[in-house]
């Protein structure tokens, strides 16, 4: 199969992902629909939360993805800085909008879910607020990509921003906890990765998490292909202008 760096060649990347994409998308569809339907229709209400517990099948996976997509972008940026593979920089660029949407979903579902308990539509809960900050980082990252014409410079600057941004995102995560600690007791259901729910909720949740992950992989393959083609078109047009 050769080393993974083989896939850094844009042409080969497109060829391979074209083969894999239909399967991943199908799997994603099955897992996603399966997880949500199972969770929505076939799980009982929580004794304390009532039916709002059904929001868990959207909120937890999207929160999970919001963080992991940024980590993926961080890794892709590091690969770009170290090994200068265009595909990894473009993969990071392709992943950003997906991560931003996931963060948005996590925010909205988190706010709606908390509404009955907190009585307000938005509560400055440390976790929700850190997702809000993460969303701002996504916006900044995407804005920087679109602000720079030259592809190489854009890849360099955005990857450095991603590195610095990650450190500050962690700092903000801690600072927000510190800032709101005294005022408000955390949400009753811990929203972090490890779930402390009964099995009956647990398996549909795993399925929908798998669905979200597969969806992300399919979309990032598709969008990276688009970025590669866009990049190639710009290069061809630049070459045309030069000759």
């Amino acid at each position: 199969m050769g080393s993974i760096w083989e896939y850094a060649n844009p042409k080969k990347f497109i060829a391979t992902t074209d083969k894999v994409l239909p399967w991943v998308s199908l799997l994603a569809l099955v897992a996603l629909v399966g997880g949500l339907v199972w969770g929505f229709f076939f799980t009982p209400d929580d004794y304390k939360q009532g039916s709002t517990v059904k929001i868990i099948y959207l909120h937890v996976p999207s929160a999970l993805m919001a963080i992991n997509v940024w980590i993926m972008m961080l890794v892709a940026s590091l690969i770009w800085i170290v090994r200068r593979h265009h595909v990894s920089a473009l993969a990071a660029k392709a992943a950003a909008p997906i991560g931003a949407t996931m963060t948005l979903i996590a925010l909205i579902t988190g706010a709606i879910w908390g509404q009955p308990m907190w009585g307000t539509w938005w509560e400055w809960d440390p976790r929700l607020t850190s997702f809000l900050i993460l969303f701002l980082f996504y916006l900044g990252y995407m804005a920087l990509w679109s602000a720079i014409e030259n592809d190489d410079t854009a890849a360099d600057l955005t990857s450095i921003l991603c590195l610095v941004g990650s450190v500050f995102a962690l700092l903000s995560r801690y600072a927000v906890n510190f800032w709101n600690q005294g005022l408000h007791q955390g949400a009753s259901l811990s929203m972090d990765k490890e779930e402390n729910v009964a099995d009956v909720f647990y398996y549909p949740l795993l399925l929908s998490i798998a669905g979200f992950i597969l969806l992300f992989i399919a979309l990032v393959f598709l969008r990276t292909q688009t970025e590669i083609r866009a990049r190639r078109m710009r290069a061809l047009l630049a070459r045309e202008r030069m000759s």
Partner: protein
Amino acid sequence: MELNVSDLSVSRGGIAVLEGLSFSILEGEALVLRGPNGSGKTTLLRTIAGLQPPLRGTIGLEREAMAYAGHSDGIKSVLTVRENLQFWADVFETGAIDPALQAFDLSALENRPAGGLSAGQKRRLGLARMVVSGRPVWVLDEPTVSLDLASVAMFAEAVRAHLAAGGLALLATHIDLGLSEARMLDVTPFKAIPPEIDDFDGDFL
């Protein structure tokens, strides 16, 4: 002290512009790069001056040996001529600036804010900065643009003095420099051949 460049290729915006360039400049020699606008002269000079990494090939001397002068002279119009020059003298840690001021007869304008200088005077201040930098290799990009004849002659004089003192000069221009004895090098034959369209790898071309 000599600068030899071997098989250098430079890129602009990720696309190779010039490739396979090899030349060497001996002590006391000046080399003038000729070529139409956009042929990559500026990119080449910036690469040799160390402002950007070369795509391929080697440059004989380190960045510390180069004094670069681009199109704009980096003159602060609010500061006076003396302050501008003194700043560069302190940065390059070379001695007093008076010899340089005399060499370009700027002593009279010493305390005038640099903003009030004419194009020719500004260019002379830029050249005085090169002298003050004490660097052996002068890398000059279009040095005589917007200069009247007297200033061009004076510029040529300054370059000759620098060469006589054992320095080297690499200039890019497409108008007359008044440096008849300098060697010429036309960059057009070194234009980079655009890579094959189907070769998808590399820079997406």
